[in-house]
């Protein structure tokens, strides 16, 4: 006898899903086989018991409590919010916007803000302007310390100081990000008449920089310490200080050159 086959039909029999012939065969088997009959009997009884389990009445106050809880603001429906959108969406969009705004602010913030020095590595010190390679070792980099008084100084004399300083700043910015650190003359009688820019530049790019400086103002060649800038190595990094002055005050130039 194949009891397994018949036992696998018990549930279909219980649900009334057996064909008449299958039902007849199973019924015949149950008359003949006591273990199957017992198993069937207990399954049938279990099914009956489940059907006969009493149905409970919910507490009378159930709906009143639910309605009272719904009046509580914590459980109010959000009618302002489209139902087919996920609940996390507003928070996600908010976080993304916050990130975007932070990134945008970071990009437009002037470099002289003191807290930027807390995150020196967060910006690329790589020149991106024309004539400069993307490779870090060839790039124009910014000197972190402004006390390098041994670096050669080029004096750029200009008529309109503020305009020239602006032009120079944007020109150097096109070479380097972030904007170069700059110092004002500490004892200038009229602030903004002299400004020092410090940078490092690959030797091979020096002529290009000089050409750009000539476009902005009169480059005082006498001040260029030619022995240091005459024949720099092609890959050698050259430190340069550029002083922009409007009236050529020697005192101011000296102060800036000496790092005071």
């Amino acid at each position, binding site marked *: 006898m194949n009891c397994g086959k018949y036992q696998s039909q018990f549930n279909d029999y219980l649900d009334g899903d057996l064909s008449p012939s299958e039902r007849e065969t199973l019924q015949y088997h149950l008359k003949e086989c006591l273990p199957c009959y017992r198993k069937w009997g207990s399954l049938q*009884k279990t099914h009956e018991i489940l059907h006969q389990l009493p*149905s409970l009445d919910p507490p009378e106050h159930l*709906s009143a*409590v639910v309605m009272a*809880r719904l009046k509580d603001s914590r459980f109010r429906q959000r009618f302002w919010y489209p139902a087919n959108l996920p609940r996390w969406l507003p928070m996600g969009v908010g976080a993304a916007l916050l990130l975007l705004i932070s990134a945008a602010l970071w990009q437009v913030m002037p470099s002289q803000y003191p807290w930027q020095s807390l995150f020196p590595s967060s910006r690329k010190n790589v020149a991106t302007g024309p004539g400069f390679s993307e490779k870090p070792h060839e790039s124009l980099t910014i000197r972190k310390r402004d006390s390098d008084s041994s670096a050669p100084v080029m004096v750029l004399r200009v008529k309109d100081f503020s305009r020239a300083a602006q032009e120079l700043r944007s020109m150097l910015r096109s070479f380097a990000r972030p904007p170069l650190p700059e110092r004002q003359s500490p004892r200038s009688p009229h602030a903004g008449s002299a400004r020092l820019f410090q940078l490092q530049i690959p030797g091979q790019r020096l002529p290009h920089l000089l050409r750009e400086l000539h476009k902005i103002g009169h480059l005082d060649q006498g001040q260029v310490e030619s022995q240091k800038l005459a024949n720099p190595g092609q890959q050698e990094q050259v430190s340069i200080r550029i002083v922009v002055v409007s009236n050529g005050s020697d005192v101011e130039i000296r102060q800036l050159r000496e790092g005071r």
Partner: protein
Amino acid sequence: MGTESLAQHSSGVKRQEEQLLVDRCRRGDRESFAQLMRLHEKKIYNFIYRMLGSEGEAEDLTQDIFIAAFRGIRSFRGEAKFSTWLYRIALNQARNRIKYLSRRNFFARQTRRADYGLNTGSESTEGLADSAPTPEQWTMAKDLAAQVQECLNQIPPQARQILVLRDVQGFSYDELSEMLSLKPGTVKSRLHRARASLRECLAGKFE
């Protein structure tokens, strides 16, 4: 009109009325929601009671289910029956509650507690004035219900839910497969295993 077509017509009307109430609910009408709740609270309460085996827990969770339904009713598009959608919420909430209670050893403590469903049921006593059970029969029946609930608590929640929905609440395989997002064949095989588990548990108790 035959009895069957009359029943179909009646269920169609019922569904239309229910959809009307749902539409009003979606516009924030609490009174319509109260009416919907009155239509379904007994079935949901009993389902949860059979899943958790405690009246107190069933009451709390039924409240939570209806509150969740009210808050989420705008996501109900009417593709399935409202009751199917409501049962899906109930199933999710019940699963979470069972996990929570299992971590606190609730079902072990619940064993042999004698409140398994014969202390309030109005249906069980209605209309039985002449054929009311004798005190002995009552005790036996109460004991049996308690044993069944104890066994229900012992079988896995997945098996329990399918057994309660099909054999206690009488849902069809199609309804079950929609509620549980399972193929009818899977529902059937799971139900078969669940019935076998319950049978074994009860057989162990009565031997």
